[in-house]
């Protein structure tokens, strides 16, 4: 190339800035949706996963029945472990929650509390939802007095948030497409401006790859810039969100899946830019005045 790849962008800085901003918005909108859903789902999932379902037996349930139910639950796919909690263990758990003095005041002893099974799930949230539904079904049995499961509304909210996260991912794909179109159009325009230069270079034996390279580099750099703007904005929003959560609930919540969502635009933006540059610079899409009308009509 005669000029550096970014020279064409520097020649029209305002236009380049407008394209980069538009491209970053196309990455930002789906990013926000996916990020919000992921952050909210993280919070809900953290709460639900820390809540293990408990199966309480009636006082007249014998050891044989308890062992049979335990063996049955252990066979379920999303179950990692089933712990048998005898009356004395239940009192200890109660003491941890209420304090030993309060339990003594209430006069609760191990003999008063029935045996129960604590189910520890082995799968993340989606499997957890299935497990909760199956545990809820056990309540109909004679030997089982009650089941301790997360509130149905919380589960429903979690399902909706999961759906929103999936929708965000879908919108993310749409955003990527829009991002690629915005960058592709701009790259094609710059390429049209550079057509005489490319023609001269090709005429004297420049390789196709050296003519394509500036467009691909430009695509990567513009994609990186737009992805950078989107990432910085998303990270700012994420920090704000965590601040709000901390202030509202008085504790910091780890948003495990939300952080990668915020960084994705940077990687995906530059990759999309490179792909857009690669696509628009293919010989069939590159304008040229070298071929006479009749030969170009034949597509040769």
């Amino acid at each position, binding site marked *: 190339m005669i000029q550096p790849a970014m020279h064409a962008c520097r020649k029209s800085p305002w236009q380049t800035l407008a394209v980069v901003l538009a491209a970053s918005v196309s990455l930002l909108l789906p990013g926000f949706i996916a990020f919000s859903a992921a952050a909210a789902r993280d919070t809900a999932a953290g709460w639900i996963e820390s809540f293990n379902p408990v199966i309480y037996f009636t006082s007249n349930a014998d050891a044989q029945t308890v062992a049979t139910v335990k063996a049955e639950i252990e066979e379920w796919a999303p179950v990692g472990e089933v712990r048998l909690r005898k009356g004395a263990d239940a009192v200890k758990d109660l003491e941890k929650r209420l304090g030993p003095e309060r339990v003594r005041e209430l006069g609760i002893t191990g003999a008063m509390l029935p045996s129960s099974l604590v189910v520890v799930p082995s799968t993340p949230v989606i499997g957890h939802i299935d497990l909760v539904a199956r545990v809820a079904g056990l309540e109909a049995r004679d030997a089982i007095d009650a089941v301790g499961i997360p509130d149905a509304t919380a589960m429903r909210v979690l399902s909706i948030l999961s759906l929103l996260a999936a929708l965000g991912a879908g919108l993310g794909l749409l955003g990527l497409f829009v991002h690629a179109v915005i960058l592709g159009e701009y790259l094609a325009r710059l390429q049209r401006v550079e057509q005489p230069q490319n023609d*001269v*270079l090709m*005429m004297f*034996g420049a*390789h196709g790859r050296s003519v394509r390279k500036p467009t691909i580099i430009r695509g990567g750099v513009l994609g990186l810039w737009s992805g950078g703007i989107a990432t910085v904005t998303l990270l700012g929003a994420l920090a704000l969100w965590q601040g709000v959560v901390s202030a509202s609930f008085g504790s910091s919540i780890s948003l495990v899946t939300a952080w990668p969502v915020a960084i994705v635009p940077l990687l995906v933006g530059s990759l999309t830019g490179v792909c857009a540059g690669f696509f628009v610079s293919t010989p069939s899409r590159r304008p040229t005045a070298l071929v006479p009308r009749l*030969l170009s009509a*034949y597509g040769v």
Partner: protein
Amino acid sequence: MRKDAPIISCFHLDLSDPTRKRKALDDISIEVERGSWSEVVGPAGGGKTLLFSVLSLRAAPPRGTKVVVGGRNLDRLPVTEIADMRRVFGSACAQPIMLDDRSVIENLVVPFVVRGESRMALESTEALLEACELMHLRDVCVRELSHQERVAVGVLRALAGRPQAILVDAALDALEQRLLKPIMAELKQCHLDGSAVVLFGREYSENARRGRRYRLELGRLSEVENPVIVPAEDAAEAGGVR
């Protein structure tokens, strides 16, 4: 490339023109020997530019045509090697594509840059401008050149670096005597130095007797043994340019 093979050969170049419902090029076969001088003349619309485009490798030939450069069949070469083949050519046409926002000297060094011979580029192009009495245009922006000067610079760019084959399409037809004479002298020098020269135009030049002469009319190419050659001065007086 083989040194004993013709610099460029083209066999069975056949191209129909659907709009005019006739053949634009009719089974044309031509061989250009290394260091030879060839001229192809004919009326407008005869197919000279199409033949020029194929022979200068500006356009890929239609299917069924065999183009051989330095003994290497282009059908069997990957695209990158075809680009390498273009480096042995210098070509110019009547409407040269130039870098309009660059100076004359910057345009003339492009072939050197592409061929990776940048070291000697400046000296060679300055010598070329000097020889053609166009040194005063050295730093002039191409956008500011007159049409004649632009065409002349286009032809000089084709000569830059003494390529193995120089093809010029109709550019010389458009040049006035003042510019044509030194450029023809430089072309002759390139030919003497070993470059093959192929000129496409309306009339034969004074140098036509040096080599092979062809006539391309209605897409048909025929070799001419004894051409009518109008001396340059007479042509200029008659309004002709060569």
